């Protein structure tokens, strides 16, 4: 069975003073794959702009736009309708030898490397190795995700957009971005290729058709253990109807939903709202 979901994501910036120029890139358009089908997507801005669209190296659809009228607030509204399905755990569970074969290591090299957000850490690696003992790669992914879920406390405000997996781990709390980064750091330390997924989460599992709920801009992980599959360490759940994916990359930096350069004073993010309506 499929869900049809409408997503209306409002985000943007408020500036201290008028901004005369700004250059922005939005990565907010859901994509299609076996589990998800994008039906329609639209991006609007206030003030109005003309977007230039392109597909980046990671396959993400980018809307680039610049602004030349002085403004003190930039609002970006990304709306889409997608069909989603559940994703059972893959029946294929590769052996450690397959995951670590020269071929996989070469093919998925980018998803095995450490980054600023996903740094190498000796202590974390040893925890990951302990969790791996006696487990297949797929079981290890589940064990590590669960460990991250149990170790971090979901708490806004402790970590920021630039916090790394280690920052969150040491603080003992964080948000979905941190859960994903910490999981990636541990998976990569035991040689399981894994990537960051940016998207949305519908928050009500038994939502009625027509009901609009407050959704979340969300992040989870995908990992390769014979094939690519996703898991949500923040909630310790598999990817299902409620997950709408937008972009994948090595870490947050590759999929940043909205980034910009502007001239003028300081900027604060305006309140982000994600309205999600189950249409079918």
């Amino acid at each position: 069975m499929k869900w049809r979901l409408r997503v209306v994501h409002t985000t943007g910036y408020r500036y201290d003073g008028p901004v005369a120029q700004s250059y922005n890139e939005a990565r907010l358009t859901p994509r299609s794959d076996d589990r998800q089908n994008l039906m329609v997507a639209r991006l609007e801005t206030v003030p109005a702009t003309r977007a230039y669209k392109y597909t980046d190296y990671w396959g993400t659809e980018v809307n680039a736009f610049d602004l030349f009228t002085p403004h003190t607030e930039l609002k970006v509204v990304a709306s889409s309708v997608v069909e989603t399905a559940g994703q059972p755990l893959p029946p294929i569970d590769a052996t450690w030898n397959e995951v670590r074969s020269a071929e996989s290591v070469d093919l998925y090299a980018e998803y095995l490397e450490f980054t600023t957000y996903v740094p190498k850490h000796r202590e974390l690696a040893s925890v990951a190795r302990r969790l791996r003992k006696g487990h297949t790669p797929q079981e290890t992914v589940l064990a590590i995700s669960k460990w991250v879920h149990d170790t971090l406390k979901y708490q806004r405000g402790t970590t920021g957009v630039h916090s790394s997996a280690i920052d969150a781990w040491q603080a003992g709390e964080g948000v979905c971005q941190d859960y994903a980064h910490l999981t990636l750091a541990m998976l990569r330390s035991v040689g399981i290729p894994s990537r960051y997924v940016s998207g949305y989460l519908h928050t009500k599992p038994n939502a009625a058709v027509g009901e609009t709920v407050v959704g979340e801009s969300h992040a989870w992980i995908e990992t390769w253990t014979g094939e690519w599959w996703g898991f949500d360490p923040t909630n310790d759940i598999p990817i299902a109807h409620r997950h709408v994916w937008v972009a994948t990359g090595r870490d947050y930096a590759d999929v940043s939903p909205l980034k910009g350069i502007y001239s003028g004073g300081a900027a604060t993010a305006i309140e982000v709202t994600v309205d999600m309506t189950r249409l079918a």
Partner: protein
Amino acid sequence: MSRASSRPAELFAGYLDPQRPHASAYDEMFDPVDGVRPAYKRLHDSLSPLRPGDLTTRSEALDRALVDQGITFSLSGEERPFPLDLVPRVITASEWARLERGIVQRVRGLEAFLADIYGDQQIIKDGVLPRRLITSCEHFHRQAAGIVPPNGVRIHVAGIDVVRDEQGDFRVLEDNLRSPSGVSYVMENRRTMARVFPDLFAKHRVRPVGDYAVHLLRSLRAAAPPGATDPNVVVLTPGVFNSAYFEHSLLARQMGVELVEGRDLFARNNVIYLRTTEGEQRVDVIYRRIDDEFLDPVHFEPDSVLGVAGLVNAARAGNVVIANAIGNGVGDDKLVYTYLPEILKYYLGEAPLLPNVDTYRCWLPAEHDEVLDRIDELVTKPVEGSGGYGIVFGPDASPKELQAQRRRIKTNPRGWIAQPVVQLSTVPTKVGERLQPRHVDLRPFAVNDGESVFVLPGGLTRVAIPEGSLIVNSSQGGGSKDTWVLAPRASAAISELSGPGLGGSGVKSEEASTPERGPELNIAQQQQQ
């Protein structure tokens, strides 16, 4: 002032001393058996009657000429001056023809490689190169994926560094595909030499180098977006504090185009404009001498003020051309360099006309171990970077330095390659009041206009001044030489004396470009972090 008692032959006294360091190196003037090589016959005949004091007089005249031309160099910057040696380096027409063919082949192959890497990556899909080789390149810029230059050219200017091995054969030491610098030295050295030694030029048919800017401008105009009927080309410099500002300004002046800084440009709706006193002026081609990382804060260093916000997407939209293209560094990574034979075979179906220097790849376990075992006899180099930084000459290094280098290699095997100590060829060079063999390399400059690849006949010869030194980088105390490519005997090829402008006011763009006012510019290749 001259020392009256010196005998003529004294200039070369002890030149071929068998006890000299690296005595097996190829000397470009003297064959150990047959004496003076034909290419150098006339030069040798002109030099040998000189007394050592004359050498000093000539050398002082050279220094004065350089000062007169206003060539001053920043001594505190990264790039130190190249003092000009008074003995030119001579390359015969046939030697040059071989070298030129090899360079053209290399540029063609690397163009195809870059187009593929930032496109479909067919060479990886076909299993010819490991994916990891590319994805681990520091200068593989994913931001450039999908940017297709209108005329397909990414390497508008290449500097291919070559050396001559013990047999005298040219080998490529490294490729420079980002913003290779030094061509201003080539032109200025020639002007200076022509002023001070007109007699030498009268006896040789030296091919001119002064029209470089004409070729560069033609290539840049040819690269423009299709809609631009009279393309507006600018030179983008990081500014006067850049060590290569002199070169940036010289090239802009000679091309008759504007020299601009990032703050002079802005993007609107994916079009780049230049702010001028007469208003906005659309820009079609940017010959930039700013590193990729500083080019556009939207896609690279967000704090950089050197570049232009929105430039990368303007190029992606096809409204402006960035020369050289973003991400070319993936083609001059020194590990990628070791795969050049595979790359040329894959794209051109050809074997390399110019061989590489033999190179060990530290990221392959077997070669890694061999490098660590023999580190005291090898040269170890970082795969990235220039200026000789990070290079360790095994035979000269202390056990402590070698140990530190072993650790660096073990920590990051991908980051290192190793080569046998190459015996760079030697050319007579003024040292004190004598001429002594000193090691040289050569950086020829190639300009691709999309139709053909032009190689400036000559190039920058760098010379290592300390006796026995093999490090020719200016940052390590090197000098330079005027590099003479001789015209074929039977050809009508233009030689340096056949046209006007020898020692004159430098190159003008003789072609029908549309000269505007041009301020100054310069060249830099080093990273700016």
